[in-house]
């Protein structure tokens, strides 16, 4: 009897092929990037970056173009929110939109200014998408502009920004999640920011095969959001690392400072020299790959202040100064100058955040919360007013472990003489 039942059920499964969720690959439009913009009239414009199946088949090394076709396409549609726009977009597409590989989300500047609260929910709610995603603000532009721009090294600009972000020393592919976490913490969010970069110098194409630098996508730095999740301002590319270092998230970075007047090298006397902003001079570059940050809250009465100790390990990669680096004392000198420079640089960025953004993106409030939970209960409500005037004592301690392949430079004589 039982055998009969089995035979019947197997037969039935053959006859009644019920695959409700069948979705063939060549019936899907795979979304790699998703952009949202706020238009003048208050509607949202969604842009999708879709993989072009024919182009991606043979791997695209030729500047994102194959036989005149680029490796991706963008499609856009208006809508009331993400899902609505997606549905409106679908009417133009022969394949079903599939967001399972949506790793990159672009947000236009205007939308960021109005607040991202209204669109961010779907990125954590929809079961189709993965929580691991990058989210970017497009500075001075719309998501659509940034997503339409072909990128030369990759077939697809969405892949390009993902990889650029991975190389920038920031945590890999988790800016969306980090935004959710930090927005739940002391109340401020931070997202990497992209921008469209013109080539530094425009030179025309003289022949067909020339490849001068073109307008391209790049990281601008980071967009800071206030507690209403509205855009408060930007940290530049050369400032974002400060936040990452203090928050213990920086992976690699190299720093360059100027060591001009070797003789006037009294400790503490040359910070202005290091920060003079001159782009030419006797420079030293240090490549740092290990970062540590220690934030210690200190209380004087009820008034909190912080001691921020930043440590790093690296080696000297370039030395155009007269210092002879085969002498350990000179390496110490570079170290000291570097620490001065970094301290000043960090102090400026931190002050900018305190005064301009009034927003605790360094997790200082979280530190009090974790170390002194009972004191935090009194401070939490007023943290937004306390933070901008907070006293911060920042010290940087670099540890230079090497001078590269040479101690002394390979060049025989130096300007400014041997030191």
């Amino acid at each position, binding site marked *: 009897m039982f055998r009969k039942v089995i035979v019947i059920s197997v037969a039935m499964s053959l006859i009644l092929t*019920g695959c409700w*969720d069948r979705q063939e690959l060549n019936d899907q439009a795979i979304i790699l990037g998703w952009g949202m913009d706020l238009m003048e009239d208050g509607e949202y414009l969604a842009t999708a970056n879709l993989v072009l199946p024919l182009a991606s088949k043979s791997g695209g090394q030729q500047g994102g173009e194959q036989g005149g076709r680029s490796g991706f396409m963008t499609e856009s549609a208006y809508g009331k929110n993400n899902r609505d726009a997606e549905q409106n977009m679908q009417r133009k597409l022969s394949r079903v939109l599939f967001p399972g590989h949506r790793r990159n989300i672009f947000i236009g500047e205007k939308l960021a200014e109005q607040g991202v609260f209204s669109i961010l929910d779907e990125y954590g709610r929809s079961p189709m998408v993965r*929580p691991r995603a990058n989210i970017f603000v497009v500075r001075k532009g719309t998501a659509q502009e940034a997503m339409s721009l072909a990128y030369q090294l990759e077939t697809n600009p969405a892949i390009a920004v993902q990889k650029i972000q991975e190389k920038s020393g920031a945590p890999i592919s988790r800016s969306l999640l980090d935004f*959710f*976490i930090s927005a*739940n913490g002391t109340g401020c969010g931070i997202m990497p920011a992209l921008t469209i970069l013109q080539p530094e110098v425009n030179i025309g194409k003289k022949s067909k095969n020339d490849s001068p630098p073109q307008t391209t996508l790049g990281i601008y730095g980071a967009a800071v959001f206030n507690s209403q999740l509205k855009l408060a301002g930007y940290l530049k590319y050369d400032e974002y690392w400060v936040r990452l270092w203090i928050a213990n998230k920086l992976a690699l970075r190299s720093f360059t400072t100027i060591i001009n007047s070797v003789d006037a090298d009294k400790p503490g006397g040359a910070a202005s020299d290091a920060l003079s902003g001159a782009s030419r001079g006797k420079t030293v570059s240090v490549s740092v790959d290990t970062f540590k940050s220690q934030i210690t809250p200190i209380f004087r009465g009820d008034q909190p202040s912080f001691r921020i100790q930043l440590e790093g390990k690296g080696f000297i990669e370039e030395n155009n100064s007269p210092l002879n680096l085969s002498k350990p004392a000179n390496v110490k000198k570079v170290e000291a100058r570097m620490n001065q420079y970094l301290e000043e640089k960090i102090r400026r960025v931190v002050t900018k955040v305190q005064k301009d953004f009034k927003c605790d993106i360094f997790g200082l409030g979280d530190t009090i919360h*974790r170390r002194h*939970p009972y004191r935090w209960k009194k401070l939490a409500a007023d943290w937004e007013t306390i933070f901008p005037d907070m006293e911060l004592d920042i010290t940087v301690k670099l540890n230079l472990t090497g001078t590269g392949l040479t101690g002394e430079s390979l060049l025989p004589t130096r300007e400014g003489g041997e030191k």
Partner: protein
Amino acid sequence: MKINNRQLFWMILMLEIGINLLITMTATIQSAKQDSWISYILAGVMGLVITYVAAKLSSRYPRQTLIEYSAAILGKWAGKLIVIPFFLQWFWVMSLILRDEFLFIRLNVLYKTPAWVIIGTMIGVVFYTVYHGGIEAIGRVSELWGPILMVILVLTFGLTANNLNWPMLLPVYADTGFGPIVEGALAPVSLLGEAVLLMMLFPFVEHPGKETRKALLLAVAFSAVLLLLGVLWVIMTFGPEVSGRLQFPFFEMVKLVYLMEFIQNMDIFVMAVWLVSIFVKLSIVMFITSYGAAQWTGKTRSWKKVLWGVAPLTFILTMLVITLNPPAGLLLKSVWIRYVLPVNMVAIPLLLLVVSSIRKRVKRQ
């Protein structure tokens, strides 16, 4: 039909952690926040106590199931009445697990497949196993899949370790306090306490005795440790706020695995293993329900006939639950924790234990 102690260990382990990892965490984290790990330790200890009481009781009647010895302890009628809550519990468990399975699968993989197909296929497989193999087949399945489950879990913990951020666990105690931590422990303990169904499994063990008790306690302890690791991992990955808002935080954590470009999308393994543990749990419960019902009516031998009734009834109940769609959190809190935990897991085993020891003493005098 005999199982050995090792099989019993794996059975209880799979029964405990599969669904517990998935559904209790949110409730716990919402109330105990970053101190949820304390709740889970507390839950582990309470779970061990509950298991110990049940095992102690069963080892007094090593050749009898709960249905039989409750009648022996309390007399025929009272003994039959007192096990009725257990039958309710088992039907409830089956239909709710199936509902959860359906919800989870529909949310994550099969978006359009109708409920009756997902539920029906699962019940079909469970029915086949129980009908043909009985408890022995379930024991063997657990013994086979348990270690695989462990490997996958260890891999999961290892591969997500780079996302961990231990300061998320601070501050300890200050934000929550005693009340919320204990409240948070209720959800996991109410599922860990399900080990009381060992009272039905005990006589099927080859040589029921001290070793059996040890295997049972070990299984519960092991599950508690795994759950503790799970909740620590979740909190250190998402922080208390975000993980308290996610419906399946453990699963979301697995989705985060992203190593060296090519190790990603691990969730499908966890899902597969999770389905197996759901299968084991359902099979165990379905077996003891039909076997228990057969014993209850006094016709132990015809338990397979009872199974023909239990399986369709479970199907109907599950479809009913899916149609009515009561919120899962409410069911967990207002029925499971309020009635099942105190009555079925604590009061009845304790009562039986106390009465049976009084009887023994009286007899001796």
